[in-house]
């Protein structure tokens, strides 16, 4: 069997083993990977930078644990930034597994900054049917969420006094692991005109570039790289995003090597066939 035939017929278990080793390496040896910041992430960072001294940002946890590794770091970085600047947050989840995950993050970060529910932030919780929920929130947050996640009526939250709908917040940043992103664009931005930015998984990112150019999105945080960029801009040194980048780098490097190797073998086989 020629060397290229052996390479082309490589058992997939070898591929799995090599990738596993590539993923383990950054866990054993400390690696630093430099991250260059993109304009779309900078746009979100500077927008959130203006949410200070009581201004309101709507932050949506529209993802579940499957995409937590990519979306949690960027959500965390935004929450740190807002609370550090004494901004206020209204949060919701359009993903059914979102609220417990969001609640853990909110409890931890709000605790770090001494922020109180109802005064510095309100967590609305989850409601099914994302499109309907977004449309209803455009009328009044109290329509889909008469009570917050902790069963406190919104009318009893001091922070919600005079706050009714998207007109009363500076903008929406939705962290999306699914199709809620499209609904925020179609209903949140197009119908109610609320400034919108998205944090999405790496594989989703290319789908949302057209909306950046059409200015329907003012910014985009794509995947773990976007999270790392955001942490770098926020001066967060030990964030999950920056820590995750070496793992992504080594695994991408391995995939690239695989592509090169398989094509070398492929062309070697083809030229050998031509020679015969």
């Amino acid at each position, binding site marked *: 069997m020629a060397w290229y035939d052996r390479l082309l017929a490589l058992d997939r278990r070898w591929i799995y083993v090599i990738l596993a080793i590539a993923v383990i390496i950054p866990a054993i040896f400390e690696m630093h990977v430099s991250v260059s910041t993109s304009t779309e992430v900078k746009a979100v960072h500077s927008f959130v930078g203006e949410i200070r001294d009581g201004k309101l940002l709507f932050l949506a946890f529209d993802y579940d*644990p499957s995409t937590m590794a990519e979306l949690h770091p960027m959500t965390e970085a935004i929450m740190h930034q807002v609370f550090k600047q004494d901004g206020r947050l209204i949060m919701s989840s359009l993903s059914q*597994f979102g609220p417990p*995950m969001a609640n853990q993050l909110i409890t931890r970060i709000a605790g770090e900054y001494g922020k109180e529910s109802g005064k510095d932030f309100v967590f609305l919780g989850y409601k099914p049917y994302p499109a309907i929920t977004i449309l209803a929130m455009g009328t009044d947050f109290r329509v889909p969420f008469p009570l917050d996640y902790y069963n406190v009526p919104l009318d009893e939250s001091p922070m919600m006094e005079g706050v009714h709908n998207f007109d009363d917040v500076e903008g929406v940043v939705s962290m999306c692991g699914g199709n809620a992103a499209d609904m925020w664009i179609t209903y949140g931005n197009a119908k109610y005109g609320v400034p919108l930015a998205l944090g999405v998984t790496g594989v989703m990112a290319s789908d949302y*570039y057209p909306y950046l150019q059409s200015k329907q999105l003012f910014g985009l945080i794509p995947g773990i790289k976007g999270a790392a960029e955001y942490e770098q801009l926020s001066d967060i040194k030990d964030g999950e995003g920056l820590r995750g980048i070496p793992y992504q780098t080594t*695994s991408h490097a391995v995939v*690239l090597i695989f592509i090169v190797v398989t094509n070398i073998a492929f062309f070697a086989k083809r030229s050998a066939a031509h020679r015969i």
Partner: protein
Amino acid sequence: MKLQIPLILVFLCGFTMIAQFMIPHEFSEDLFQYANDFVIVIGILALPIGIYSLMSSTVRKARRNPNERLFSIVTIFGFVIMIIAGLKADWFYSPTSLSSRFFDYILIPAQATLFSLLAFYIASAAYRAFRARTALAAVLLITAFVIMLRLIPLPEPVSTWNNTFVRWILEVPNMAAKRAILIGVALGGITYSMKILLGIERSYMGGD
């Protein structure tokens, strides 16, 4: 009548909601909220049917195939235990409750594991499928290669060149293709919706 009543209902509801979307009036907003409540009520009514369907198919599968029995038991057990864990609203907020424990120690690791397994399948697929067999396959291969290369630290000025090229790929060919697809899908959606509202497309009623 069995055919005409649903068609009339769809026609009336559909065109009322189109009109509602275009009319910025308080009455229109109230109508919209009322319609939204209807959707939620219908969803709630569909829930018992969904539960019955899940349970009956699981039990049927367990009876028919002994190899599936264990999975079916796990499904039913998981379903029942999560109902019990969620009986009281307060149990959701407590980090030590059964519901939180299941969420933290079963759901999060299970979903994260399943999602991360994708990396292995992608690596295997990249090795087997990303071969420049044709000119179009070569274009796809080069595009994927260049975009993935962005995440690898490269020496300057190669890194800057690569980033510029990646931005161009995302903002020009990618955007053109996505926009064409989006416009096509939107036009198709409008056409299909109109066919449903006008009673031309009736497959949602169970026929052809």
